[in-house]
Structure formats: C-alpha cells, structure tokens
C-alpha cells in the first residue's frame, strides 16, 4: 500500500495553516510582480507573477488532498456505546492521485520556472523537454515520494545559489532575506525527501518551508514599506 500521509496526528491542521500562510505570501509576490509587469512590460516579470501564482495554486491542491486524507483518518462512527474509527472510501483514489499530481506538477513548474528565469534560459526546446520531464516526474512521484523532493532540491538549490550570488553582489538586507528564504525552501525539500524515516521530520520540513516563505514575506514587506 502506498503511504500518502506522513504527518503526526497532532500536527493535522497545523500544516494546513502553514500552507495557507505560504499561499498568502506567494499571492502577494505574484500580484506585486504583475503590477511591476504592467509598467515594465517585461516577460520576466510576467513569468515571475505566473510562477508564484502556480505555487499558490499548488498549495491549494495540497491542502485539498491533505484535508481529504485527514478527514478519512479521523472519521469515526458510533455504534451503540462503541466508537469505531474507520477509513472512509467516500472520495476515490483518483481524487487523491489528481490532487497530489497537480500539487507536484505546479510546484515543480514553479521551481523549474524560477531556475530558467534566474539563469536567463530562453530555448523553447529546453522548455518543452523539461515540461515533459516535469509531467513524468509529477506522475511517477506518486509512487516514490522522495523522487519529487530530490528533484526539487536540485532545482531550488540552483535558484538558491543564484540568490546567494545576488546577495553577495548587492549586500542588502532584502537580498539576504530572499537568499535565506530560498535556502530554507531547499532544506525543507531535503527533509521532505527523507520524511519516511520519522514522522517528526514532516513537522521539521513544514517548519522550514514556512520559515522560507516568512523570509520571502520579510523581504517583500521591507521593499513595500520603504
């Protein structure tokens, strides 16, 4: 049987709250990038807006899938004085597969899109080839949780490296926050990749991911409040 649920029971719902915060941060960055695009008319700004919108939608899919999984585990039935906890089959496996597939597809496209953007890669053949690989990855990672996260570590690792160089060049607090944010997101994926070892690792990965988005929020607020 495939393991889809790695969260400790006490953490049910808390991770959903973490994801909601990440959605808000991603949407703020996405809409600000769109505002920037309306003035600059640069494709890079439009793509940046789309990629952050993608990660926000990806988290919506993750929340929907997790909510369904938690609901199943927690569903109880009262038979006389006996309370029975059972696994509901009300929502099909296809729904979960679809939810996880969309979450992983959009997350991988976000990471790959940023990788392309920061490395100034514009070749359409590369784009088509990698889009195909990302779809295959999202499909196959249903059967191998770590596969998806290892790929994310690679992509976000390169993005983090770019932001680290950018930070060294600019020496500003904002650039430090952005670089730290992406390093945190990379580390979160390292932990997500080995989450099967212990349920507590899932909590650690979620905390690192939240920290990553909070650092990006810090950079965003710092820019806006100037």
């Amino acid at each position, binding site marked *: 049987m495939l393991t889809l649920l790695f969260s400790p029971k006490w953490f049910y719902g808390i991770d959903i709250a973490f994801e909601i915060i990440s959605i808000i941060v991603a949407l703020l*960055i996405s809409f*600000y*990038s769109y*505002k*920037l695009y309306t*003035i*600059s*008319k*640069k494709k*890079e*700004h439009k793509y*940046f807006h789309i990629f952050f919108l993608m990660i926000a939608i990806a988290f919506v899919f993750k929340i929907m899938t997790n909510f369904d999984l938690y609901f199943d585990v927690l569903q109880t039935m009262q038979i006389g004085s006996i309370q029975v906890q059972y696994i509901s089959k009300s929502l099909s496996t296809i729904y979960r597969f679809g939810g996880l597939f969309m979450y992983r597809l959009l997350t991988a496209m976000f990471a790959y899109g940023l990788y392309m*953007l*920061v490395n100034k890669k514009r070749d359409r053949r590369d784009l088509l080839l990698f889009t195909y690989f990302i779809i295959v990855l999202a499909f196959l990672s249903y059967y191998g949780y770590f596969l998806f996260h290892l790929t994310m570590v690679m992509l976000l690792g390169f993005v983090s490296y*770019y*932001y680290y160089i*950018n930070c060294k060049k*600019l020496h*500003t607090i*904002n*650039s430090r*926050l*952005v670089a730290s944010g992406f390093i945190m997101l990379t580390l979160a994926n390292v932990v997500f990749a080995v989450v099967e070892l212990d349920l507590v690792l899932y909590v650690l990965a979620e905390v690192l991911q939240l920290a990553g988005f909070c650092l990006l929020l810090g*950079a*965003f607020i710092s*820019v*806006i409040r*100037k």
Partner: protein
Amino acid sequence: MRGGGRRDRVDVILAILETIYTERNEAKPTHIMYKANLSHKLMEGYFTELIEKGIIEKVDVKGKMRISLTGKGSEFLRELRKMKSFMQSFGL
C-alpha cells in the same frame, strides 16, 4: 540593469523621474536627456507617455520650458523606487 546590458522601461522612467526630482522639480529637458542617457527621439516618446499619464508636466519658468513632476508623479516615483528594490532583491 545587470552587467551593463540593455536597460528596461522601469530603469529609464526611474532615471527620468529621479533627474527631475534631484533638479528641484524644474529640470531642463536636455539635462534629463543626458542624465537618463537617452536619444532626443526616445526622450520625446517617454515625455509624451508620461505627460499623457499625468506623471510629469511641462511648466514655464521665466519664459523657459522645464519639466516637473505632478503630485501623481511624485507618488509614482516612490512606487518605482520600491519596484526597483523588489526587482533587485528578487534578481529580476
């Protein structure tokens, strides 16, 4: 702008508005042209667009034409500075 590459619209508009701001809101068009590093044709194109959008205006100072920021223009300059900072921080 990175590595001396082509400037984008935000950089050019920001350079125009910063020049007007530093020249106490009464900038000579030629100063703007030199400081923003624009050709006369390009500068006129930007002027037309910014005047249409109510960001800058042509004013008469002792019989000489000067360019100044409108109230909306000052607000827009603040917004552009934030955008530039966002672009740099996020490596765009």
